[in-house]
């Protein structure tokens, strides 16, 4: 495979495009609401009308607005159909040449779509994730070719540093610095690893990228491997994502067949092999040292750092671990340049961030916005606020490791520093909106139950501490707690945060601490003598 071959494939793919293209979402969200039946019905309708040479039905990845799925969009007209049912497909096809279809037409000019800036999701919902030609036609693998033939590994690392990309897994460590560290460490064997063990309740960004544009991750990995001097990569993906795994397997097979992975990629001396490792369903395996243990075939438990994986990771070799979304940013940065990337976002948080909007919000789904976009814009404008005229009480970001941001702080821009200032974190991008019906003690208790169940059991504060925090929260919820219990809860949370071995334990108390800080009245209302359950969600002992 050479550049001319790549361009040929792209040209043929574009030429074979039919004048009218009907894109149908086949990502997990829409598939769960009859997406596959909709696509089949569209195919049948096209065949029944004898439109095969003019109309093409394409199964694509996520188009973002999951709450209105299954989604179907028609090119070039741009008409978006929402909540499409198989029986409506005949009328959609009939309306392709003008006229109205018997289906809900979505407004593509609303802020949910217009406020987005697509970098990571630029191909999502546009290309067929199961065809490598479709990715190549969207300029795929061109960046890899450029890197292998026109750049030194050091130049690639410099570009990533100049772009100012920070890790999208949550902590926001400068990606370029991590790459430089691994590149500088001398070793015979190095690895690159993709952390696709997304386990935060309410988050599905990584799943969506893997399902919608798997080749982008492979290209990002290959560029990273070239930059740091690795020849073997692993995608560690959670077993709960079967569709993402299958599309990734397809993508690896296609790329290998075309010589874009394997030995002598693009006829260069660079060799790169990618394998998939499927997680058995442990939240802690998203922690990098536990993830490494799991790939090695051991029990997935974290170990103290240092040594960091960049110095001693998989099988004791220097290992580069980045999140799915981080790798997804790599190809566009090399294609469009570090300056272009650095021009998006804020001074310290460059680029865009993908968020999974969920909870009490009108438009749930996936959005990508420039860093620094105010939370209010996301929740109220793009998300459409709380349905049925309710008011936002809090926005939970960062999953079990994050915190609840109160309504009064909705003007906080979403970037790493600002979110930390209000006691939350970016996390991997889960965003759950809560309204006045939600009791914050119950919310904190939910996240603590999650952490308690997902603790690996290795260190005492996390294993035994989360259990006791959960018990104290239950006691408060059940109106059995005293002021002393509240004080113990605070001390225990501080202690678990300060003393736990890994990020899971260190951040587990965050939802409790942030709700204690912003919603003390929810706690206070439940302290004291037992009484009848009140209207604000304080349920009697049931669970």
């Amino acid at each position, binding site marked *: 495979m050479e550049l001319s071959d790549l361009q040929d494939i792209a040209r043929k793919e574009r030429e074979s495009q039919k004048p009218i293209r009907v894109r149908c979402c086949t990502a997990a969200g829409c598939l769960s609401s009859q997406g596959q039946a909709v696509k089949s019905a569209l195919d049948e309708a096209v065949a029944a009308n004898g439109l095969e040479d003019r109309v093409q039905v394409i199964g694509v990845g996520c188009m973002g607005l999951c709450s209105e799925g299954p989604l179907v969009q028609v090119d070039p007209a741009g008409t978006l159909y929402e909540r499409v049912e198989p029986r409506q497909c005949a009328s959609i096809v009939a309306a392709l040449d003008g006229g109205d279809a018997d289906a809900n037409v979505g407004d593509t000019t609303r802020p949910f779509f217009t406020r987005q800036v697509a970098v990571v999701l630029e191909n999502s919902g546009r290309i067929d994730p199961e065809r490598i030609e479709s990715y190549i036609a969207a300029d795929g693998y061109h960046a890899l070719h450029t890197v292998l033939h026109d750049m030194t590994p050091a130049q690639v690392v410099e570009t990533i540093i100049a772009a100012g990309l920070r890790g999208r897994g949550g902590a926001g460590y400068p990606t370029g610095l991590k790459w430089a560290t691994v590149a500088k460490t001398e070793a015979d064997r190095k690895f690159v690893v993709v952390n696709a063990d997304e386990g935060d309740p309410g988050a599905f960004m990584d799943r969506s990228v893997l399902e919608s544009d798997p080749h982008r991750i492979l290209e990002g990995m290959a560029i990273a491997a070239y930059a740091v001097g690795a020849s073997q990569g692993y995608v560690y993906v959670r077993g709960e994502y079967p569709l993402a795994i299958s599309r990734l397997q397809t993508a690896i097979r296609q790329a290998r067949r075309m010589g874009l992975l394997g030995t002598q990629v693009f006829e260069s001396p660079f060799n790169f092999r990618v394998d998939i490792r499927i997680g058995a369903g*442990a939240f*802690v395996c998203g922690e990098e040292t536990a993830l490494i243990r799991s790939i090695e075939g051991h*029990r997935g438990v974290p*170990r*103290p750092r240092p040594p960091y994986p960049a110095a001693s990771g998989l099988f004791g070799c220097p290992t580069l671990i980045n999140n799915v979304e981080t790798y997804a940013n790599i190809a566009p940065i090399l294609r469009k340049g570090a300056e272009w990337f650095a021009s998006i976002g804020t001074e310290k948080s460059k680029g865009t961030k993908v968020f999974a909007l969920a909870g009490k919000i009108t438009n749930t789904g996936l959005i990508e916005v420039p860093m620094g976009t105010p939370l209010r814009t996301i929740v109220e404008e793009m998300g459409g606020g709380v349905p049925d005229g309710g008011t936002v009480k809090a926005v939970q970001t960062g999953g079990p490791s994050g915190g609840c941001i109160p309504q009064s702080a909705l003007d906080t821009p979403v970037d790493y520093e600002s979110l930390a200032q209000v006691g939350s974190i970016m996390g991997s991008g889960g965003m759950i909106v809560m309204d006045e019906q939600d009791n914050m003690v119950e919310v904190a208790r939910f996240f603590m139950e999650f952490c*308690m*169940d*997902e*603790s*690996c*059991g*290795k*260190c*005492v*504060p996390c*294993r*035994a*501490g*989360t*259990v*006791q925090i959960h*018990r104290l929260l239950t006691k408060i919820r059940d109106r059995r707690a005293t002021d002393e219990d509240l004080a*113990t809860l605070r*001390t*225990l949370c501080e*202690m678990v945060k*300060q*003393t*736990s*071995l890994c990020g899971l334990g260190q951040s587990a108390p965050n939802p409790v601490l942030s709700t204690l800080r912003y919603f003390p009245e929810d706690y206070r209302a439940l302290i004291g003598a037992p009484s009848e359950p009140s209207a604000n969600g304080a349920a009697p002992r049931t669970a």
Partner: protein
Amino acid sequence: MAVRTLTIDGKPVSALEEQTVLDAARDAGIEIPTLCHLDGATDVGACRLCLVEVVGTNRLLPACVTRVAEGMQVVTTSERLREYRRMILELLFAERNHVCSVCVANGHCELQDLAIAQGMDHVRFDYLFPKHLVDVSHPRFGVDHNRCVLCTRCVRVCDEIEGAHTWDVAGRGSRATVITDMNVPWGSATSCTSCGKCVQACPTGAIFRRGSTVAEMDRDRTRLDFIVTAREKKQWIG
């Protein structure tokens, strides 16, 4: 071998560069409480009792896996550390069913000693009273999960010193338990060589010699030391 100079609790201490803060402190006669650390086995930094403060960093660092560094200023006791250590011990006591008065290790128990040394005189948390069984299927030894603190010393000595890897951990969170082979009764674990190293290693009365009665369990850790020294330094001295 290079030497580093540091201060521990204000006392100047010199240590070999590969030494941990824990080793350096012990050499200097400063005791840092530990539960999962065992000389001769790799450190896992799991019990968090040996956390110390290091001037210049906000994070608490586990002394057992933190290497000494030139000019490092270590604080091993502070009000914060004392409070956290007591709380960790309270959490352990509340987690399983530790009843000293009917335990084989009473009077020879590291958990008990630590509680006394750290001034833990009551437990603030609810006792969880989990249902745990006692496995006496092995002809010579037994394991009482009610006393287990999951320090994994048994797992490590069995794997690293005996080379059998009979012990491991199964389950997550507070449901984690030590198991033998593929979670079979100890007596049926075919990989077990009955060497008794796990019995020597256990800090509490969780792994014991059958036939021991209350407060009878005493341990001879020099046996483990002997094997480790023999292996690492090729010196066969008892």
